[in-house]
């Protein structure tokens, strides 16, 4: 993707509730690039779930380390990247393929990841020693693509 352009970077504390700031920020950018109201709702939920994962598993609840959300565009997509600093003690198997047919049951079935996969157009998850990156892409509407 040679035309990737970073637009906005947001850092929120690893505290539940701050995912709403990420939702608001992503919404404002998505409106600017012409994404439809319905797809914006999908994106908001996906971003919230990615942030919650980063807060809960990535940084551990209450950690002072930030969750970093970067928002970019390439020729075809709005790209959202959520990353933590891998300070948490428990890590889910984020990279593992999610069963898209069967929603997880039980409180720790990682419902969040299941939702993310269903709500955005592309998901790519990278687990590294320095943190987990959740890359999400939402296709720009045909009306704004030339």
């Amino acid at each position, binding site marked *: 993707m040679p035309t990737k352009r970073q637009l906005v970077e947001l850092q929120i504390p690893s505290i*539940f*509730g701050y995912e*709403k700031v990420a939702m608001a920020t992503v919404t404002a950018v998505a409106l600017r690039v012409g994404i439809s109201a*319905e797809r914006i709702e999908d994106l908001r*939920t996906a971003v919230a779930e990615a942030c*919650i994962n980063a807060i809960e598993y990535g940084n551990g609840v209450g950690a002072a380390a930030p969750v970093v959300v970067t928002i970019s565009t390439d020729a075809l997509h709005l790209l959202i990247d959520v990353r933590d600093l891998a300070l948490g003690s428990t890590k889910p198997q984020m990279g593992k393929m999610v069963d898209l047919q069967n929603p997880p049951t039980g*409180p720790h079935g990682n*419902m969040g990841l*299941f*939702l993310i996969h269903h709500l955005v157009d592309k998901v790519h998850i990278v687990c590294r020693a320095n943190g987990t990156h959740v890359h999400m892409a939402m296709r720009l509407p045909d009306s704004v693509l030339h």
Partner: protein
Amino acid sequence: MAQELKVGVRHSAAVTVLDLHGDVTMFAESELTRAYHQAIDDGARALVLNFAGTDYINSAGIAIIISLLTEARTGAVTLVICGLSTHYQKIFRMVGLTQYAEVYDTEDLAVQELKNRGIGESAPV
């Protein structure tokens, strides 16, 4: 926090409606459980969960709803859902929640359907 969940318990034509106001997240658990048990202790056997006052539900909140549904099923309580936006109706369907509870657009439809089924008629108020 300003969006902390508050649940009102209201009786409407022999059906008990739980009005949810605020965010349905992990912070909502004790309030939701409290309201549910208050309704059950009052003798309710047919409950409507009304999400009209909610515009943020996340996976932790969904997990709480699922555990309420499981508890309702065990206790032979009928629980239905109304007031969800189109987006959250889609999400509830996506995660399979609609297999456990009927979802109606409005409270009126939900209450009417429960009455049609004869559920809640004998519930004490």
